[in-house]
């Protein structure tokens, strides 16, 4: 039962990651890309959780914790950068 659920979760998360990549490439502005990147970071946290179940090793949870932390710092950094720099046509 759990192996089927793990397989399905991997498939659904991969599909979501693909949709996120499409939004990342489409843009149209830099904040949209930042939102897509943040979505992909939380998708990766989910991936690591599923992988912890699949491999029966819970040490992966530490990776998920650190990844969540860095994703938050990246979002804050991007927001500050945007507010300082303003919008240019290079987006």
């Amino acid at each position, binding site marked *: 039962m759990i192996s089927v659920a793990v397989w399905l979760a991997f498939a659904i998360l991969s599909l*979501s990651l693909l949709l996120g990549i499409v939004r990342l490439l489409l843009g149209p502005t830099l904040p949209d890309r930042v939102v897509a990147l943040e979505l992909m970071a939380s*998708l990766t946290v989910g991936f690591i959780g599923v992988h912890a179940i699949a491999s029966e090793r819970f040490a992966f949870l530490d990776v998920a914790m650190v990844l969540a932390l860095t994703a938050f710092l990246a979002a*804050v950094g991007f927001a500050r950068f945007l507010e300082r720099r303003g*919008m240019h046509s290079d987006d």
Partner: protein
Amino acid sequence: MTEWIAALLLLAGSLLMLLAALGALRMPDLLMRMHATTKAGALGSGLIMLAVAVYFANAEVWARVLAIIAFIMLTAPVAAHMIGRAGYFVGVPLWGRILRDDLKDRYDPEHHTLDSPEEFAEKRQFEDRRHH
């Protein structure tokens, strides 16, 4: 039994993640995209983490999972607020069919200040008097 609960939580979490990604792809402007990704994404990764804790059923895992969930719940709104604010200030175009934008004309991009409602009303009265 715990395997069934873990499997259900896993599926619910990944479906919510899919919902977040679909929203990010299909919604028409930045704020609506964030509306989809922030809430569904945070709940989805939280549910997946809960599935991990239920599956391992172990105090060490529960402590880590609760820490991760608490961290996600604390930081997701803050990050979304900062990005949305920066996006509005930078002038990201809003959806064409939006009915009202309360911050319009109140935010001054040159000085990076926002008038309070009273200040804004005063300014408006002043301009009205000048026009008459």
